[in-house]
C-alpha cells in the first residue's frame, strides 16, 4: 500500500540514494504539476517528501509546498532550518552545521575506505547517519574484506558512543539491532516518485535512467503493472532473509539482475556483512549490560549470500 510520495522539484534535485543525477540543466517542476502532485498526495493519504536542488526556489513554489505537511530532503548547500534530511557526498563538509540532523552520506567504496575514520565524528553530531555506497554493485572480493574490516572498526566506535550514554543511529550497524522485520526501500510498493515532467516513476533512479520508464502521470494517474513484484512476498531471495536493514534497492536489482524483485550477489553480501557486524555489536553491548532486552539475538549464519541456500527453500 502506498504511503509516501517523493516529489523531485527539479531535474538537478539532489540524489539521496544509489543513483546519480545525470541531468545538469535546471528544470523546475511546473507549478501546475506541483499542485497536482500535492493534491494526489492528499487524496491518496500519502506523506510527501520534497527533494530539493541546490538553489533557492521561487517564493511561489515555497508557498505551494507549504500548503501540505511534508519532509524536505536537501543538499548541504541548501541546508536551512526547514531541512529534515540533508544529503552530502563530500567528506570535507563543515560538520558543525549538521548538528542534530538526519544525514545521508553518499560515497563510493574508495572514499569510504579512505574516510571512514571521520564517521565517528559525524555520529557524535548528527541525530542519524545513513551511508549510501554509490557503487555498491561493483563490490569485489577486496571490497568485501575491506568493508568487513571497516564495519568491525565502526562497531568499536559505536560501542564507545553507547558506553558514553549516547544512542547513535547508523543505518549500517544499529538499524538491524532494532528492527523486527524487513525495512527496505519499498519503491513501487509503499513509495512512488513524481518527476518534474509530471510523470510517476518507481523511484528517482528510474527517471534518471530512462524517462520513458514511467508508471503513469499526474493527469491520468498511477499505473504500476506487475505491482506485486515490488512486494517482499514476491521476492524469493529476500522474503526469507533476515538482513532486515538491507536497502533492497529496487533499481539496483533491476540494473544488475534485470528483475526488480531479485537482489544482486553484491547487494546480499554487503547487507550480510552489515548484519553480521550488527550481531557482533549487539553481543558486545549485551556483554556490558542490559541492551535491547526485548529484541531477539541475531543468529549466526554460514553464508553471506542467501542465494547460496535458495534452492533448499524451494
Amino acid at each position: 500500500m502506498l504511503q509516501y510520495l517523493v516529489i523531485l522539484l527539479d531535474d538537478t534535485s539532489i540524489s539521496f540514494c544509489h543513483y546519480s543525477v545525470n541531468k545538469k540543466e535546471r528544470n523546475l517542476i511546473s507549478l501546475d504539476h506541483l499542485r497536482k502532485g500535492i493534491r494526489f498526495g492528499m487524496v491518496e493519504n500519502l506523506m510527501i517528501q520534497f527533494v530539493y536542488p541546490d538553489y533557492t526556489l521561487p517564493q511561489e513554489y515555497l508557498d505551494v509546498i507549504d500548503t501540505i505537511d511534508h519532509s524536505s530532503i536537501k543538499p548541504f548547500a541548501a541546508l536551512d532550518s526547514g531541512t529534515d534530511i540533508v544529503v552530502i557526498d563530500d567528506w570535507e563538509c563543515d560538520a558543525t552545521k549538521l548538528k542534530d540532523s538526519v544525514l545521508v552520506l553518499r560515497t563510493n567504496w574508495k572514499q569510504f575506505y579512505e574516510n571512514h575514520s571521520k564517521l565517528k565524528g559525524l555520529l557524535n553530531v548528527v541525530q542519524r547517519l545513513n551511508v549510501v555506497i554509490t557503487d555498491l554493485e561493483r563490490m569485489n572480493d577486496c571490497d568485501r574484506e575491506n568493508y568487513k574490516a571497516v564495519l568491525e572498526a565502526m562497531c568499536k566506535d559505536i560501542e564507545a558512543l553507547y558506553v558514553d550514554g549516547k544512542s547513535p543511529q547508523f543505518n549500517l550497524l544499529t538499524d538491524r539491532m532494532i528492527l523486527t522485520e524487513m525495512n527496505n526501500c519499498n519503491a513501487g510498493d509503499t513509495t512512488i516518485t513524481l518527476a518534474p515532467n509530471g510523470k510517476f516513476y518507481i523511484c528517482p533512479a528510474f527517471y534518471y535512467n530512462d524517462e520513458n520508464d514511467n508508471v503513469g502521470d499526474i493527469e491520468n494517474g498511477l499505473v504500476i503493472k506487475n505491482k506485486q513484484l515490488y512486494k517482499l512476498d514476491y521476492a524469493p531471495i529476500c522474503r526469507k532473509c533476515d538482513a532486515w536493514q538491507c536497502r533492497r534497492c529496487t533499481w539496483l536489482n533491476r540494473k544488475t539482475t534485470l528483475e526488480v524483485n531479485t537482489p544482486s550477489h553484491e547487494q546480499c553480501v554487503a547487507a550480510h556483512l552489515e548484519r553480521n557486524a550488527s550481531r557482533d555489536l549487539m553481543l558486545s553491548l549485551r556483554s556490558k549490560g542490559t541492551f535491547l532486552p526485548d529484541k531477539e539475538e541475531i543468529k549466526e549464519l554460514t553464508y553471506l549470500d542467501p542465494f547460496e541456500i535458495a534452492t533448499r527453500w524451494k
Partner: protein
Amino acid sequence: MGNIKDEAAQWLDGTAANITFIVTKDCQLACKYCYLVGKNDKERMSFLTAKKAIDYILTSSLFFGRQKSVILDFIGGEPLLEVELIDKICDYFKLQTYIRGHKWFDAYRINLTTNGLNYHTKKVRKFIEKNITHLSITITIDGNEIKHDLNRVYKNSGKGSYKNVLKNIPLWLKDFKDIGTKVTISSADIPYIKESVLHLFSLGIHHLYTNCVFEDVWKEGDDKLFEEQLSELADIIIDNEYYKDFTCSFFSENIGKPLDPILENQNWCGAGKMLAVDAAGMFYPCTRFAGYSLREKKPIIIGNVRDGIDKNKLRPFLTLDRTTQSPQKCLDCEVASGCAWCQGENYDAAETNTIYQRATAICLMHKARVRANNYYWNKLYRKLELEGQREEFEKNKRKVKPVDC
C-alpha cells in the same frame, strides 16, 4: 546400438548439464506455429565462436561445476543445414575433454531435433554413423499429411513438407529404434489430432510427446473440440490395446491434481539451468530468450564467450518458483498439476520486462486435456481390472517425461 530409451531416462533425469548451440537461424520451412520470429540465413555460428564457448564451459565451474555429464544440443533454424559444423564442434568437444582430462570425456550426448528433410543426405548419414553411440535425433512429424502440412510448410513455396519428411522416417526409425517424436498442437490442427496420433503409431513411432503451443492462439470452442478429439483417441487406444506398445503424453496419470503451495512450488521450466549460445557468442538462459525467439521483448543475455556468465543475471531464473510467478487463479486451480509454461513465452507475453508473470493462454486447453485424461485412465483401469491385467500393466508401464517446450 544401445537402448536409447533407457539411456535417455538416465540422461534426462536432471543431472546432466545442457548446452545448446544455435548453429543457424536458417530453415527450409516456415512453420506457422514456430516461435522463432527472427529466422534468417545470415546468422550462422562460426567454428571459432563454438570453440570459445566450449573452452569457456570446460573451464567454468560457475555454471557446470556439479554435473557429471553433459548434453550438447544443436538447434536452429534447422540444425542439419550445418551438420558439418556440428560435427566439427563435437570433435572439438571430444578432443578438449580428452586433453583436459575433463569429467565429461565420454560422458556426453548429442541431441538434435530436425525437420527431417536432409536426414538421408550423405553428410548427415556420415555424421550419424560417426556419432551413433552418443547421439539422439528426433524428427518432427506432426501427424497425418493434412495436419502436418497445415503448419509445416516450405518458406519459399508455402507447400507442405509431409511427403519429403515421410520418406526419411523408416531410415530414422532404423537408426533410433525406440525413439519418439514431438507433436505440437495449435488451433487450426485440433480437428486432426486423433487421426494424426494414430497415423504416427502406424508409422512405427511408439512414443509421442505432445504439447499445445504456449502462445495466445486459441479460439473460442477450441477446448471443447480438443477434449472431443482426445476422448475419441482414448477410446481407440484402449479398445485396440495400443496402450500396450505405444505412449502418448496427452495421457498422463499425474496431471490434473491441485498443487501444494509449499511442497510443490518448483518452477516448471529449466531456463537458467541450461545455457544457449548463438552465432554472436552470446549466452542465454535458454534459446527462447535469444532475439530471434522474441516477438515483443529484448533478448536476455546472461554473458558471452569472451567475458563468461554474469551470475547476477542468472539469479532470477534460479530462484523462480511456481507460486511467485503464478496468478491467483493458477494457485487456486484444482487441476494445476501438469499445466506447463514456457519461461520465454511468459517473458515475451508479460506486461513488463519480467520472467515473473506466468502466461495462461493454455488454461482452457489444459483443463480440456485433464478431462479427457481422466476419462482415459478411468476407462483403461476399469478395462484392465475386469480383465485382471491391471497389476501387470502397472508393472510394465513406461514413464512419460513431460515435454517442457
